[in-house]
């Protein structure tokens, strides 16, 4: 299975998003590079609104992800509750 | 395959036809195994210029910064013109030797294989 990835700016909001993604996707690898955080996973990765809200301690709209996003790879499916990245093969 | 265009039978102007070079033609020259020169050179020259003048004046102006240039034995140099083996004659003009507009001339200098023999 190919790897999906999500790269965020290394800042104080992303820190909590990364924690949330780590909780919901125990298999991910997190790589820290200058100014950015790269998360990779085989086949699939999900960012759940609820988990991020819990970590941040406030409401969080999935579309807010764009404020801290750098790049991503995989087929995207986004709705009110999650952003999901996946490859079928 | 022809281009798919909005206009039927579309074709652009040929930007680099020889008529646009004011009596000159473009000749490219590359010295194999001497990658100090990152690419072959391009020169606009009159087709009537003799090969000897082309080599000793025009080519010299580009290649002489290489430490091996002065050591070249022209009798032992191997030439290629547009992908074919080629024997130049110093007294003949470029035109009569078949060196045309946008011809590519490559030469190789056996024994002189670049700085420290490394192809540079």
């Amino acid at each position, binding site marked *: 299975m*190919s*790897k999906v990835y999500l790269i965020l700016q290394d800042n104080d909001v992303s820190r909590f998003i990364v924690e949330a993604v780590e909780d919901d996707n125990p298999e991910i690898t997190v790589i820290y*590079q*200058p*100014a*950015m955080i790269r998360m990779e996973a085989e086949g699939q990765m999900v960012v759940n609104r609820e988990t991020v809200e819990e970590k941040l301690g406030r409401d969080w709209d999935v*579309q807010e992800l*764009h*404020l801290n*996003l*750098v*790049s*991503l*790879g995989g*087929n*995207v*499916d*986004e*709705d*009110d509750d999650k952003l999901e990245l996946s*490859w*079928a*093969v | *395959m*022809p*281009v798919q*265009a*909005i206009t039927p039978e*579309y074709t*652009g*102007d*040929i*930007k*680099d036809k020889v008529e*646009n*070079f*004011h009596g000159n033609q473009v000749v*490219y020259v*590359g010295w*194999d195994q001497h*990658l*100090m*020169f*990152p*690419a*072959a*050179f*391009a020169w606009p020259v009159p087709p009537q210029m003799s090969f000897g003048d082309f080599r000793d004046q025009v080519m010299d102006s*580009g290649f002489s*910064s290489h430490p091996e240039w002065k050591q070249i034995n022209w009798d032992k140099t191997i030439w290629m013109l*547009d*992908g074919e083996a080629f024997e130049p004659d110093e007294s003949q003009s470029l035109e009569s030797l078949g060196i045309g507009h*946008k011809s*590519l001339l*490559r030469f190789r200098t056996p024994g002189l294989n*670049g700085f*420290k023999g*490394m*192809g*540079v």
Partner: protein
Amino acid sequence: MAAKKLNLKDKYKLLTRDLDWEFSYEDRKEAFPYEEFEGIKITDWSKWEDPFRLTMDAYWKYQAEKEKKLYAIFDAFQQNNGHLNVSDPRYVNAVKLFLTGVSPLEYQAYQGFAHVGRQFGGVGARVACQMQSIDELRHVQTQVHAMSPYNKFFDGFHDWTHMHDRVWYLSVPKSFFDDARTGGPFEFLVAISFSFEYVLTNLLFVPFMSGAAHNGDLNTVTFGFSAQSDEARHMTLGLEVIKFLLEQHEDNVPIVQKWIDKWFWRGCRLLSLVGMMMDYMLPNKVMSWKEAWEVYFEEAGGALFKDLARYGIRMPKYADVVEKEKEHVSHQAWWTFYAYGHAAGFHTWIPTDKELDWLSEKYPETFDKYYRPRWELAKKLEAEGKRFYSQALPQLCTTCQVPMMFTDMENPGELSYRSTEYKGEKYHFCSDGCCDIFKDEPEKYVQSWLPVHQIFQGNCGGPDVPDILKDFYHFNLGADNLDMKGSPDEERWKQWKSA
């Protein structure tokens, strides 16, 4: 009672799809005259999907927030003399190349998307292109603002739009976009949204920008990541565009494959510049060009093409050649700029011994064998007081317009020469990839505005090179060009640091 909040899917439907109208008295074909000539068949525009379901209201809201964050940083950079915090004054030359070579492409992308957004019959595509067009305009504006503080302190930043249209090496990026914009609307989307955004811009905007951060350039990394957050949306859209075209009609598959092949190759040639920026112009290293290529093309692009195999799409043609070239192109490009450093609008230099060792370590198969000897020769000549500047103009590839500096991957010690004849004229290319592109549409590429030939034709002033550089390119000779060593940039830096 509070109004019920719409969910994302319903909002997208109302604010995008429902904006369309029926053509009751105008001919639809006349309204969208460029939709068919490329041979692409669309049977149902309603199948177009935006996976982010972004609507205009949310777009403005989040883009405004991005801008506020970004401009706060630009202010901080300016107020705190950010230019003094870069790792090394050599680094700033990468920013000069970015401003003259890349930012104008953002403007071209803005114009291109505004144009094609008008040409599509589907409302989803039109709205997506409109947003992307505005994004691209934002990118050029933020980039100009981000880089303008450098213009106060360093040479070479003064006339970037003028230079983009004229300078020999900038014809490489310019002609890339000119080529895309003169294609039809669907080719433009495949070229830019897919090949350029999805397969290639990641390399410029992720590892290079991380490198900018690592070299203390707060402004550049911030505009880079801010732009890339839009690009992530563009990339996703690019992938959706491809899937949409492939699902609409089987006849689209070979056309799309041909465009993928062409634009992958054109993109790789353009990226030679980025390879050199990463390996040679970032004094503090994050990763080598080869490593970046492996992560962002081989791994990420490989996953993508594996996913597209179900539609009958294969890896781009010549991906195997590119896999070998990743060991070579950055070195060939920097050497070319070094050799033509008198004709460049930024400074060039011999890498330090430590940097040469880093290159040997990162490129164990190729650096010591092919490229270190070039630098040894350069050092020897410099020590003799004869800093090497190539004294004649280079042969250019007709398609990519890069000097023919690429070597043959079968024999990397020899230059790669390819040629063809068309209507009795000879044409030369750096590679099979560029030669194939020409042969497929010779009527288009006979018009290539090759800077070297234009100089010979007398269209760039002159006739002497210094006059062309000064009057036609607007270089400040002796300040913008030549080696970093002894440059006014270097002189000023020393003064600031000793103060």
